[in-house]
């Protein structure tokens, strides 16, 4: 039977056609927009109005700066200092290089003409300044600026980062002439110059003629900043995602000029977003220096982009910072007070697995409380090696040699099958890249030590002497330091498997400071930071003196927060204070400290803090590298990276269109 199709109700062909046309039009909208965006993007420079081959683009690990228009580096703020501000605009008296230094000189007199001159009892420090240095607004830099800086900081301890430090140390500061500054100290301190010596950062010098106009300097935004460095601010993103610096016309009037003209006319510090975006950007040659990314990301990047390379030409590629990640135990807690327990925990760790878990094998391991980097191998690791081999501990049932000198070698061998030539064969190279030995994993000995300490194993779980279960919470910095979080979670797993229930608390950055209130049990972090280039250990060690130690459960500044206390330690520190910064005796005392530390194992050192800084040589050459020229640390948020600028040379390449 045939049906009549109603032509009046429901649809009409004409309507349908109109509708379809309408829809197609609307649907193509998005696609069209994308295409258009696409072409437009391809057709323009990554930076507007600046030729790509004149600008060095580096990652600022601070991410987006909350208050970009505030350039006052002297006040406490969560970010806004490594935007190029402290690397390119600021300057201070001295720099110590974390690696070999330009022309192999680790120490550089920057604004100072010479090393600090202390009097015999270290109660006075005299500084001679360079002349002919100018602020970027043309005003001469003089001793008055230094004096003004110190006095301003002292006057407002709460307002300024180093205010309290100055107030606590400085009795008076004077400028007998325009090139000389004299500090009178409240108490002897042979390391006071450290305040003005750059290791990542330091106390920067203020422009007196700018700040003296402000009645509350700590509230002053200092925008635009007036610089002593070779660059000045060109422009910045009001949303805080990028800052662009421009080479000063009169760069000759800056301290850097001693090493020649800086290469890049412009330097941009940008927030490239999360690790994977950084990789993508450098693959598109839109980010010359990746500050850090995940190991996997770095390997992939170096593999995929022939122009990208790390600090090491081969594995592990990453730059070992003079910082020593460790399991920081809170030694004030009863359960960690006994060195045997701490040793047991150390012996339960399989460093190879930790290395794989955290750095995918790209760690530089260290058995002693000194980073295996910079000049430390020659000063500490080589001399200590034999002592470590001979070192024994008493498990209560027997004495063992816990040290396994071949650990790094084994790691290298373990990696070689999968990574092949990327893994060095020469033992020296291996030692440089992977470190030396570490503590052999020895659950048996660990168990004996725990029993010696009075713990009992009940149903596969360790019970403390008081009968409560032995549990450990390891705090990590979570997102902020994913690699540390990974290491922590693996160590927690290993301890748990050994019968000590352990978990990680991945704390957000904001919570991290609560770590210093003394309730924390353990954390995957570090309390050891050194100059890197210079053997002196006071940078971290001085703050380990019991005079700075807070009561259990009280706030402890983020220095000696393993809260380890030992009369011998205090003695060593006091002796170090009494010798000059460059006195070889300091190194001997350092070794004594290492021995004392190893006997007590107050924290468990693991490895250096390896930063996966990846450099793209498409537009720039002359980056530092471990093998060719380790003249400085490439990690771009270090103020020391200003020395890179004079070594970088343009390749003249132009963006491929």
């Amino acid at each position, binding site marked *: 039977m045939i049906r009549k199709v109603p032509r009046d109700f429901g649809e009409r062909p004409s309507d349908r056609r109109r509708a379809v046309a309408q829809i197609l039009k609307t649907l193509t909208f998005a696609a069209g927009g994308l295409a258009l965006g696409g072409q437009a993007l391809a057709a323009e420079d990554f930076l507007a109005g600046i030729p790509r081959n004149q600008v060095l683009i580096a990652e600022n690990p601070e991410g987006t700066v909350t208050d970009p228009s505030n350039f006052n580096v002297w006040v406490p703020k969560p970010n806004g200092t490594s935007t190029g501000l402290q690397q390119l605009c600021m300057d201070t008296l001295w720099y110590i290089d974390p690696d070999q230094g330009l022309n192999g000189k680790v120490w550089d007199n920057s604004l100072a003409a010479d090393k600090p001159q202390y009097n015999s009892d270290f109660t006075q420090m005299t500084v001679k300044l360079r002349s002919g240095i100018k602020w970027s607004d043309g005003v001469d830099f003089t001793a008055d600026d230094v004096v003004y800086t110190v006095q301003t900081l002292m006057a407002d301890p709460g307002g300024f980062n180093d205010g309290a430090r100055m107030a606590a140390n400085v009795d008076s500061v004077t400028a007998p002439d325009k090139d000389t500054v004299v500090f009178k100290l409240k108490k002897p301190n042979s390391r006071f110059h450290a305040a003005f010596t750059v290791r990542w950062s330091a106390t920067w010098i203020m422009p007196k003629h700018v700040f003296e106009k402000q009645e509350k300097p700590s509230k002053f935004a200092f925008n635009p900043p007036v610089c002593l460095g070779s660059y000045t601010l060109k422009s910045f993103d009001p949303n805080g995602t990028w800052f662009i610096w421009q080479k000063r016309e009169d760069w000759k009037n800056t301290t850097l000029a001693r090493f020649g003209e800086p290469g890049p006319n412009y330097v941009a510090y940008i927030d490239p977003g*999360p*690790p*994977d975006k950084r*990789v*993508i950007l450098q693959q598109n040659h839109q980010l010359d220096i990746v500050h850090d*990314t*995940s190991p*996997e*990301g770095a*390997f*992939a*990047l170096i593999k995929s982009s022939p122009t990208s390379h790390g600090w090491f030409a081969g594995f592990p590629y990453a730059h070992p910072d003079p910082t020593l990640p460790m399991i920081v135990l809170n030694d004030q807690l009863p359960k960690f007070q006994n060195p045997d327990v701490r040793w047991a925990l150390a012996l339960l760790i399989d460093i190879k*697995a930790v290395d*794989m*878990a955290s750095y*995918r094998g790209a760690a530089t391991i260290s058995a002693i409380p000194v980073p295996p980097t910079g000049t430390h191998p020659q000063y500490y690791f080589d001399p200590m090696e034999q002592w470590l081999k001979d070192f024994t501990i008493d498990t209560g049932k027997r004495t063992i040699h816990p040290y396994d000198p071949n650990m790094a070698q084994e790691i290298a061998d373990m990696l070689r099958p999968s990574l092949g030539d990327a893994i060095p064969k020469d033992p020296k190279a291996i030692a440089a890249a992977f470190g030396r030995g570490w503590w052999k994993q020895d659950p048996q000995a660990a168990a004996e030590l725990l029993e010696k300490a009075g713990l009992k194993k009940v149903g596969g779980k360790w019970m403390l002497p008081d009968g409560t279960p032995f549990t450990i919470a390891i*705090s990590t910095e*979570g*997102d902020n330091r*994913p690699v540390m*979080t*990974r290491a922590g*979670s*693996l160590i927690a*797993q290993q301890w748990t498997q050994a019968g000590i229930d352990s*978990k*990680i*608390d*991945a*704390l*957000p950055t904001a*919570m991290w400071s609560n770590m210093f209130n003394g309730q924390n049990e353990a954390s995957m972090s570090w309390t050891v930071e050194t100059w890197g280039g210079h053997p002196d250990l006071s940078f971290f060690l001085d703050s380990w003196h019991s005079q700075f130690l807070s009561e259990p459960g009280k706030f402890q500044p983020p220095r000696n927060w393993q809260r380890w206390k030992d009369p011998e330690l205090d003695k060593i520190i006091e002796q170090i204070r009494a010798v000059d910064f460059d006195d070889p005796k300091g190194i001997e005392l350092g070794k004594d400290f290492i021995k004392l530390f190893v006997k007590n194992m107050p924290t468990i050192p693991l490895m250096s803090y390896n930063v996966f800084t990846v450099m793209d040589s498409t537009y720039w050459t002359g980056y530092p590298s471990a093998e060719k020229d380790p003249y400085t640390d490439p990690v771009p948020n270090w103020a020391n990276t200003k020395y890179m600028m004079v070594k970088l040379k343009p390749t003249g390449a132009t963006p491929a269109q």
Partner: protein
Amino acid sequence: MFSVVKDLVRYNREFALGAILILLVVAMSLASFFSPYPSGVQYVVPFDTPPSWSYPFGTNSRGQDVFWQLTFAIRNSLLFGLTVAVLSRLVALFVGLTSGYVGGTVDRVLMSINDTFVVFPPFPILVLVYFIFKDHMSWPLLAVAMASLGWPYDARLIRSVAMSLRSREFTTQSLFSGMSTRQILVEEHLPYVLPIVFATTMNNINWSIGLEVTLSVIGFTNIDTPTIGTMIYWANQHTALVAGVWWWIAFPVGLVIMTFIGLYLLSVSMNEYIDPRSRLSRMGGAA
């Protein structure tokens, strides 16, 4: 009820498809009970091996088998979504039925509270919750927090239905037959709104799982409990994408999308079956 399901499967393509998807997802989560590895343990299998016979979904950079990891993740995510849904349904039912049936001042008060909650942007609130609990953030806690935000929209819907029921004879009859308000609501009205509640449950599960993913990937939950969200979080931590470990991202994302579409299809087909106009009355009820 079963005949209803049978009809739906037979005659409603959406329902059939949705049911299949959800069955797959549930099967996946049940598989977790047969996992050779305990949940969350790392470095038990080789790194980053692509999907193969021995590792159907490959392995990730934490030395975990993505397949088994995923079974735990989806189980927890579903459990989470279900908890939120059930909790928020209870609130929605209570508010909806009461204000719909009792009406008057009670209705006005409840509804103004309701409308207050409706406009709250959940995200900032949940971020605040995380802000208090931080490292103590556990998923039951998060579930409660979300449940307390996830009810108002549906409470309105239920209310509008309850109001229409109120005017039906059987209500007056049961009223005359001396039933208490509670009895009337629970014994007489509940059966009528349950199908709608069921449909909204699906949407609510979607909503809560989605929100959990969102919070997890920015690390605002307990990253040790494997969920779809934390799985993506860890994958991002290891930049799985650029490292070429696509299977670590693709499978969780694929599975979660499957879940969302499945649940969604179920809810729409239910809606259609219950009442083609429910969408209209829902919106109208909200006016």
